[in-house]
């Protein structure tokens, strides 16, 4: 079946979030995307790290303000670590 637009959007958003956190916050590229991580979801933890850096609400979720920040043009150097 054709992917419903909102599901497609969701997929696009997830890819944006993952590549942003991989590029700038050291999120490990996930070789086994369907294997649940131990402890708190590392994606949510990395999201909180990014939200803390930019002074956003630390929801651990890709809310509007977080996505708005992720879409801003920026420097390619990571914000955390090198």
């Amino acid at each position, binding site marked *: 079946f054709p992917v419903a637009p909102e599901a497609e959007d969701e997929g696009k958003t997830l890819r944006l979030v993952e590549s942003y956190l991989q*590029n700038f916050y050291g999120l490990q590229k996930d070789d086994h995307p369907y294997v649940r991580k131990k402890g708190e979801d590392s994606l949510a933890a990395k999201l909180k790290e990014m939200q803390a*850096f*930019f002074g956003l609400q630390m929801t651990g979720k890709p809310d509007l303000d977080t996505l708005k920040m992720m879409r801003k043009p*920026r*420097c390619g*150097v990571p914000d955390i670590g090198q």
Partner: protein
Amino acid sequence: YVFTAGNPKWKRNNLTYRILNYTPKMRQADVDEAIQKALSVWSNVTQLTFQKLEDKEADIMISFAYRDHQDNSPFDGPNGQLAHAFQPGEGIGGDVHLDEEEAWTKDGRGYNLFIVVAHELGHSLGLSHSNDPGALMYPTYSYTDPKEFLLPQDDIDGIQAIYGQSNAAVQPTGPVTPQACDPNLTFDAITTLRGETIFFKGRYMLRKHPERTEAELNFISLFWPKLPSGIQAAYENIERDEVLLFKEDKYWVLRGYDIAPGYPKQIYHLGFPKTVKRVNAAYSDEATGKTYFFIADRYWRYDENKKSMDSAYPRKIVSDFGKIGRVDAVFQKNGYIYFFHGTTQFQFDPRAKRIVRKMKSISWFNC
């Protein structure tokens, strides 16, 4: 500010740089000038010097690169990642790579090469990203007119912590990012704008929406790249859905969110005498169509319908508004007039013709 992990730094102050290639989107001379100006941003506040090399290996090699350029950090096409740089060290250390697919310019269009290179050189010298939204080393791009650019204090503190101060007799200082709840915060100008309230300070504006508890800090240039920083007075003409912004003897008109064509104009266009060099503050009374301009210890009244100054003005501020001193900023809201003088704010009731309350200037930010 943040040092790069491991605190890498150059062991000497006299560094070399080389421009390996050029972008076809700018004149070569403009690229040279942007890069030279970006280097001086850092040499002006330290004892670092940068010598340009034409053909040998330099400490800082600056190049425009495309997508995967063999450094394990491929670029991503237009927008997104604009550039990156490497921390001090041998070989690729210190080098700056600029994404060739970006719209590089020497002004406010696309991405200003000077601003981006100045940021990347911060990395080349050992700085990481700062979380001060006003800092040059903040990760996201924001335009500042190169002619008006001043290295923010956060960046000065960071680079001097690595390489020491400059030789100058008086140490250079830079703009400090306003904090909404800083009790010492004062304002250059304030205006309403379609139900919101905009507080101007230096190159920043604090945007307060009645339904949001937090004020949003932005660069003025984010909304209006053609407006200068240091706006001195501003007022909204609600009926015409316009905001007038003043700096020195000029004013701009915002129609909605856009600068109206044909501005800036000289303030004498409004009827001021040539003895007036600038406006300190202004507000417009929606009910009467009268606009009040405050200059030093006097004020003028302008009729928005007749589009001319009322006669029998200027008058002394103290005669009609009481002891509020020099007016830094003023705006009208819910029938009251709010005068700002330094860190003090006076709420004036135009019906009772008197000050009804005195508050801190930051009372609007729910501190």
